[in-house]
């Protein structure tokens, strides 16, 4: 049995924290569990136990890091948030880039077909798409204002993704409406078409940066409290 005088409680806690981090827990989870351990040890101090005994009892009550990890994985078998903020943003970026290219291609085919048939129908459909896009922006705006009313500052990356989709679609169809070849002799339509595939990823890259900066700021805030 180890001599209690050699036992260093702070080092034991630090080693435990290192072990938790090796199990791929996020910084926030580790901080929370460490805080819990601190509360447990504070309660055990009053039981007139040595520091080593307090730590052993605390470890027994909390369970092994393996047990904690299994319980965590059971509740969240596929936790998208385990990926870093950058990885999430890249995933959204790729999905959105692919969808936007499909949308651009499909829209070109639709409007080329319509243009040869009925210009009024073309204009009407453009307006319909713009209204849908505006409706999407309105929904996002409502979610933002509701979140502010509830004092929730964390909106999540879904709002950035959805707002980006609707805003860019809105601008795209506005461009089609005002700048299509039959409306003006100086047509910017081909230029808009050629630039748009680059504008969409650029718009969403901003969302990726915003999300990544948010994650870093959050971790800095947690560290600053300690």
């Amino acid at each position, binding site marked *: 049995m180890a001599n209690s005088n050699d036992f260093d409680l702070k080092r034991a806690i630090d080693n435990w924290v290192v072990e938790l981090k090796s199990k791929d827990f996020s910084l926030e989870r580790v*901080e929370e569990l460490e*805080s819990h351990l601190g509360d447990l040890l504070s309660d055990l101090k009053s039981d007139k136990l040595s520091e080593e005994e307090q730590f052993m009892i605390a470890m027994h009550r909390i*369970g092994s890091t393996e047990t904690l990890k299994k*319980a965590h994985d059971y*509740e*969240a078998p596929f936790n998208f948030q385990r990926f870093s903020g950058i990885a999430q943003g890249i995933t959204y970026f790729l999905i959105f880039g692919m969808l936007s290219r499909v949308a651009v291609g499909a829209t070109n085919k639709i409007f080329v077909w319509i243009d040869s048939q009925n210009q009024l129908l073309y204009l009407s459909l453009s307006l319909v798409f713009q209204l849908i896009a505006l409706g999407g922006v309105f929904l996002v705006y409502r979610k933002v204002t509701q979140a502010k009313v509830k004092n929730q500052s964390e909106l999540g990356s879904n709002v950035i993704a959805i707002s980006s989709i609707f805003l860019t679609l809105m601008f795209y169809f506005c461009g089609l409406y005002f700048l299509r070849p039959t409306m003006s002799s100086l047509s910017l339509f081909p230029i808009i078409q050629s630039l748009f595939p680059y504008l969409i990823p650029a718009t969403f890259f901003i969302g990726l940066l915003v999300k990544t900066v948010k994650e870093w700021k959050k971790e800095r805030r947690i560290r600053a409290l300690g």
Partner: protein
Amino acid sequence: MKDLSKEMIGATSIPLILSILHEGESYGYNIIQRMKEISNDQIEWKEGTLYPILHKMEKRGLITSFWKVSDNGRKRKYYRIVEEGESLVSVEIQNWKSMNQIFSKLWQTQMTSI
């Protein structure tokens, strides 16, 4: 966990946590202690059980969390119930009252038939 089955405790974890948070914001360790106190030590959540449930509830939008530095200088993650959670508590109260009435009738009938 004494006397009460794991299935029963598992099924009631979320309503129990919400009910505790309905009393006021709290943190993980305090929630465990409060549950032990209310249940006369019949329900003793493990840390490995409680925290994943809290995180799941937060993802569902039933509760929200924030960090705060306590009086002893230690930072803690607190949880607070939100509107969605309050609504669920109201629903669960009605559900459990209904179940309680059903069981009371059944067991009374069974006892009188013995």
